[in-house]
């Protein structure tokens, strides 16, 4: 396994995902750290998704939506922005550097901007080093399950 940071990215279908596609069709090159998940609207990005990404070992999370005023669903990006501002504060309290979470607006024509953003984000996260959330939680859960003699993870999965 490489030591390169992993960044989970949530892109809205209409602007940002199309922008990322454009970066591809224009053969622009960027760091391979970004792994993209498509959502219909940035307003669909639940705080849970971001936390889950960190939980699963992501070193950074990038959310992209349409530019203000351009949302395909009128105002989903504003909803996303509000949640993002709160979430930034929240993850800081949890000991996650707030620079690890970023929200940017990428339109369908901004393939170049997306490629640059991907590189920038990779650089930021690389400088911050590994987030280690997964390792910490894994260790905690391992200890806990040994103590309680049961598989907490399994119970958690069932609860979902």
């Amino acid at each position, binding site marked *: 396994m490489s030591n390169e940071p992993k960044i989970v990215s949530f892109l809205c279908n209409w602007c940002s995902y199309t922008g990322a*596609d454009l970066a*591809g069709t224009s053969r*622009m*090159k*960027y760091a*391979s750290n970004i792994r993209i998940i498509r959502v219909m609207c940035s307003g*669909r990005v639940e705080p849970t998704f971001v936390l889950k990404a960190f939980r699963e070992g*992501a070193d950074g999370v990038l959310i992209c939506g349409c530019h203000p005023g351009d949302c*395909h669903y009128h105002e989903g990006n504003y909803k996303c922005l509000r949640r993002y501002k709160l979430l930034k504060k929240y993850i800081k309290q949890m000991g996650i550097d707030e620079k690890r979470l970023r929200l940017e607006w990428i339109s369908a024509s901004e393939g170049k901007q997306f490629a640059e953003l991907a590189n920038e984000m990779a650089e930021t996260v690389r400088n911050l080093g590994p987030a280690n959330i997964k390792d910490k939680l894994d260790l905690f859960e391992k200890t806990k399950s040994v103590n309680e003699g049961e598989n907490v993870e399994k119970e958690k999965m069932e609860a979902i």
Partner: protein
Amino acid sequence: MEEPRIGVYICWCGTNIAKMVDVEYIAEEVKKLQNVVVSRNYKYMCSDPGQDLIIKDIKENNLNRIVVSACSPRIHELTFRKALENAGLNSYLFEMANIREHVSWVHTDRKEATEKAKSLVIAAIKRVAFHDSLEKRYVDINPATLIIGGGIAGLTAALEIAETGKQVYLIEKKNSLGGNLAFVDLSYPDMNSISQVLDPRIEKVINHPNIKVFLNTEINEVFGYVGNFETKLFENTKAEEILKFGNIIVATGLKPFDPSVIPEYSYGKLPDVITSIEFEKMLKSGIIRTKDGKKPKNIGIIHCVGSRNNKYKEYCSRTCCSTGLKFANQLRDALPDAGIYELYGDMRAFGKGCEEFYTQTSRKDIVFMMFDQRNDLPKIKASTHNRDFNMIIEINEKLSGEELNIPVDMVILLVGAQAQDNAKDIAHAVGISMCGNAFYIERHPKLDPVATTTDGVYIVGSCQGPKGIIDSVSQTRAAVSRILGTIAQGSVQVEVTTAVVNEDVCCGCQTCISVCPYTAISFDPENNVSVVNEVLCKGCGTCGSACPTGAIKSRHFTDLQILSQIEGIMSLELEEI
């Protein structure tokens, strides 16, 4: 839930993917995953044999979930969904991993690219396991069509549709029909009168019983969805009437480039520097004169004004070169002794008959000179030395390498095309996207160049990118045939990825109602729960993110599906899974 039996297909896309991603390795690796029954790699999954592979596997191996790892789902998701349907499987039990646009085309290290592609495939596999069958929903189509823009494209569309007996609403922001062509004298390369083509069409549109024309009218907002759109019209800013229609054609055309921003050309400062539009008007009036009322003796025609120059517009405006040739012909006919100079960056006389037109024109004693369009524009300067000319064009002629001064008394600037000022407002009103130059983006640049990502909204003519009459009319007829096709079917399939409330879990807090941009959610006070109107819901999922109890589910983008996808995307070591 039935046990998932997943088929995974990794596409090579010829060498597009296979060159940068080890497709065979990934196909082997994911075989180890739970529930993966079949895993293959194939040269072109979107080809008929590729799709047949999936269909055959579904039948023989009793597969109930399919993952195709190939290009962007924006390109071939529908293709593969159809394949699933052909095999008798619900089309939503499918997921695509984008390993071309998001991997092989943007990365340069094969090992890294393969690792990333693998994680995307695993994510798709983990996600698809939680996909649900969704029932298709059909809505009736209102056979009326709204056309925005009354230029050649809009007029053609209106007549084509109205002739089949269907209602057309044609909206034009100006006070007359015809668009930019209304100013043009002759067409190229055939040199026929434009008004002979345009005027009867305008006449026919105005008098057609199935076409209702709204002049001086702009569109604010369109509500609804394919088959059932609605808008309130504002004529001269007073509310006019409510229109209902099933499809929309956007034919808003282009705006000529304003050359006064180019200092070299002194447009607006020297009175005899005019635009091609102004010269067309002169041609139509039949009198070619300088501002002093004299017959011009030497005329310069400058190409690419505002086009193909990073300072102004990067793109080619496509019609200027042949227009310049047309002007040279018309000038030669009108002024047999005049000096005519074509100053060009590159001569792009493309299209049927146009290269021949260029050759013929060059034999008519017309001087062609080349300049560096990107770095060294010719300069137009006033001259007081001679009564026979009042301007000098300074040009660094590229082919001879000489610096030349051309005496002229008229300069025609072949101004390029740009998007309309209100392009963004229209895009917002009908829900379509624009490229960086504010031209509208088609659903697929090659395979679907007239539709947009919003079902029922089509783009034709120069609002999609600069083009001449032939291309505009062809594109318009293509859009019309698409619309008539859907009208003939009577109903259209709409997205079923709407939100749905689990009433047992809903606590009645109404948070979802406050965030819904479509007022698609209402409150049922009797049962103290939220209720989604599936016709109004467009499936953005904002309510799902806001719901504190997880009662609202965004179909096809459920928490479980996305959380599983995140797990998959982060599971780098297969052994860990």
